[in-house]
């Protein structure tokens, strides 16, 4: 097994064996969907209209709140220092961790999204657009999140500051993510929105491991 795959496998094994985190994340994601009807009322038309935004905000918040564990534990027990001295370039290790983070925190959300679709009265076609846009857009959230987690890893009380930093940077993901679902009253631009979303995902995925690795290695020496 190559070192890159080994890092991914290690992250996945860790998250499976320590258990709870993934379930809590999914629970949080679903709960946002449950809470919204209480806030805006059970009107199905209104809910269906709000649904794309609600699903994206739920995914957005759950991915941002789960950020902290990306590097924190490894930083605290010193694994990060070992990883920095590995043969594999550190940015490749960070890329592996980003991929693992996406598998652990985004895929469960996508799997759980039918629940939200039912509760928010989304029809079938719209539901598949939701799944597609989440699938294309969440890698960008994971990659941006990695930068936030890397920047704040050496701050002891950095739990809340990473989401605050990353939220404004992730605005484009939200815009195109929702744009790829809802067509709105004007001309149908969801196709081009999906392409833009894919472009943003690819760019951030390509650049963020380098930025995150640089932030980590300049933060601790």
């Amino acid at each position: 097994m190559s070192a890159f795959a080994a890092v991914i496998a290690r992250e996945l094994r860790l998250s499976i064996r320590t258990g709870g985190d993934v379930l809590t994340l999914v629970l949080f994601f679903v709960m946002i969907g449950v809470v919204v009807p209480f806030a805006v009322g059970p009107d199905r038309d209104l809910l269906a209209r709000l649904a794309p935004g609600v699903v994206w905000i739920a995914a957005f918040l759950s991915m941002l709140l789960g950020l902290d564990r990306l590097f924190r534990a490894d930083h605290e027990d010193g694994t990060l220092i070992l990883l920095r001295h590995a043969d594999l370039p550190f940015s490749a290790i960070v890329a592996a961790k980003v991929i693992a983070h996406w598998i652990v925190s985004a895929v469960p959300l996508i799997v759980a999204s039918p629940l939200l679709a039912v509760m928010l009265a989304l029809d079938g076609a719209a539901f598949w657009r939701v799944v597609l846009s989440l699938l294309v857009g969440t890698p960008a959230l994971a990659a941006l999140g990695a930068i936030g987690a890397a920047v704040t890893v050496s701050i002891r009380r950095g739990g809340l500051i990473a989401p605050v930093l990353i939220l404004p940077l992730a605005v484009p993901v939200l815009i195109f993510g929702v744009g790829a679902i809802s067509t709105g009253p004007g001309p149908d631009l969801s196709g081009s929105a999906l392409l833009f979303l894919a472009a943003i995902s690819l760019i951030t995925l390509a650049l963020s491991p380098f930025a995150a690795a640089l932030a980590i290695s300049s933060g601790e020496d």
Partner: protein
Amino acid sequence: MTTDTAPKPSLWNRLAHPGQFVALTRSWLWPLTIVTAALFAVGLWFAFFNSPEDYQMGDTVRIMYIHVPTAWLSQFVYGIMAVSAIGSLVWRHPMADVSMKAAAPLGATFTALALFTGSLWGRPTWGTFWEWDGRMTSTLVLLLIYLGIVALWRAFDDQLRAARVIAVFTLVGAINIPIIKFSVDWWSTLHQPSSVFTMRGPHMPPSILTPLLVMAIAFTMLFLTLHLKAMHTEVARRRLMALQRQAAQTGASA
């Protein structure tokens, strides 16, 4: 303690020493202040007494003389921060760290001022304090980024370590800002009725352009003055912290 035999260091290297930097630039503060005050005097006189009313907007057009310069500075200051970030990552120049830290609250302030004056201007001309228009929204996101950076500076205990980490984040933000700008424009054209008043009218007559330019230069000079002063303050603050740490150590060992 100086050694006379050592070769005279270059200006760039001398500027890297905080004490030398303060000594070299302290004498600039007064001239900068006077130039800024004079430019403001001229600019405000033009803006209030010697520029015509707009035929549509009347006297409210004068808000522009504050609004446009602060909006310009909101982006210029981020540029200064990005250049300082490169300086601190590539050359590890200590004053680049200080410049980056001193610029962040100033940038946040100018951005907030631009939004505030913009909403004061929007009320009489558009009939609303806030419109989710492309420019306003991307300025708002810029303000959030500034505030995030200020919060990040405050979260770190060790300012030297903080500088390089924040430099990375500042550059990530610099790459991201055009993407945000583009996506917000895309979003607002999708959602918005096109009836909203835009500034892209016929280009301005010189009687309005002159005061606008003077005010823009005045505000830029104001930023430079405040930035320099803030850098001096930051150097003094760091020296104070170092002395306190030293005092605590001698106190502990005594």
